[in-house]
């Protein structure tokens, strides 16, 4: 319950404040969001498997975001930023699909 409330408050704050990111961080935000999405679905899957742990979730969330941003940043430095961000999105996308498939099996037995 608190989790849903927290998500709603975060979205509400974002809409109300209209925050703008410094331009240097702009390219990394989409990748960070995809990584966070992966962490959230992974957390939900663990919750359904009854192995959920808040500490693991928080650490995985933060490290996912940071590593995704780091990979793209390094890619930008060595000139393959767009290719690397594509790679990150593909990998995270595959994980998200796997997690969602698992969640679907748990909830709907299908």
């Amino acid at each position, binding site marked *: *319950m*608190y*989790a*849903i*409330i*927290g*998500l*709603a*408050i*975060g*979205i509400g*704050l*974002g*809409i109300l404040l*209209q*925050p*703008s*990111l410094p*331009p240097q961080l*702009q*390219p990394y*935000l*989409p990748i*960070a*969001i995809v990584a*966070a*999405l*992966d*962490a*959230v679905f*992974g*957390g939900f*899957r*663990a919750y*359904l*498997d*009854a*192995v*959920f*742990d*808040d500490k*693991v*979730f*928080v650490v*995985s*969330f933060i*490290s*996912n975001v940071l590593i995704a941003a780091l990979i793209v940043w390094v890619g*930008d430095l060595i000139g393959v*930023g*767009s290719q690397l961000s594509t790679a990150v999105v593909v990998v995270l996308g595959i994980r998200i699909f796997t997690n969602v498939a*698992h969640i679907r*099996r*748990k*909830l709907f*037995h299908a």
Partner: protein
Amino acid sequence: MPEGPPTPPSRVADNAWARIRRDLTRPSRSQLLVAVVLLLFGFALTMQLSGGRDERYTNLRQDELVAMLDDVQAQARRLEGEINQLEGTRARLESGAESSAVARREALRRLDALELLGGTVPAQGPGIRVTITDPQGNLSPEILLNTVEELRDAGAEVMELDDRVRLVANSWFASVDGGLQADGVPLGDTIVLEAIGDPETLSEATRFRGGLVATIEGDRVGGTARVEKVDDLVIDAVVDPDEPRFARPA
């Protein structure tokens, strides 16, 4: 990343909905941490959605931007060339239209002059009206021809006899069966000659010694000639020019 261990007992799957329902109605404290993390996630999500809308080029990389700039510059050069070409065309067309308008005005002006000279259009203007009466029938074609020539010398531009005969370059006078004819039209005892020109000069040209008035009122003819100046003479008679059979414009 919390990786679930290999799915253990099916019991877990069976009461998954029950657990979700329980956690939604009676949340535990450990959910607070998750709530904070999800709050950050939602915040970032809206940041991206609201920021990405009006900045189309922020996510593009340097080389993409350079290529795009090149494209735009090439397009601008092409369009500038097109502008120059079209402006040149416009200037050419404008000068062409101007010269043809000048030629057209000139041609119209000459047409007016030639129409008056050829007698194909009615004319009006100041001039004189000469009324000649010849009760004894002594008037000869030569006298009339002399009169016309005198008036032409004095600057008569358009002339008419009896409101019927327009006097032009190939007009003729003749004596037929004792009566006078002008361009085939019989003239009576009283002849009215109208001429457009400077009234003073024209009336002087009829009065000099040995001129029209003197000739007609003299003993040989014994008629009368009355000259009046008219401010606005209207000459309606026109001639229908014949198509020349031999002459062609050179």
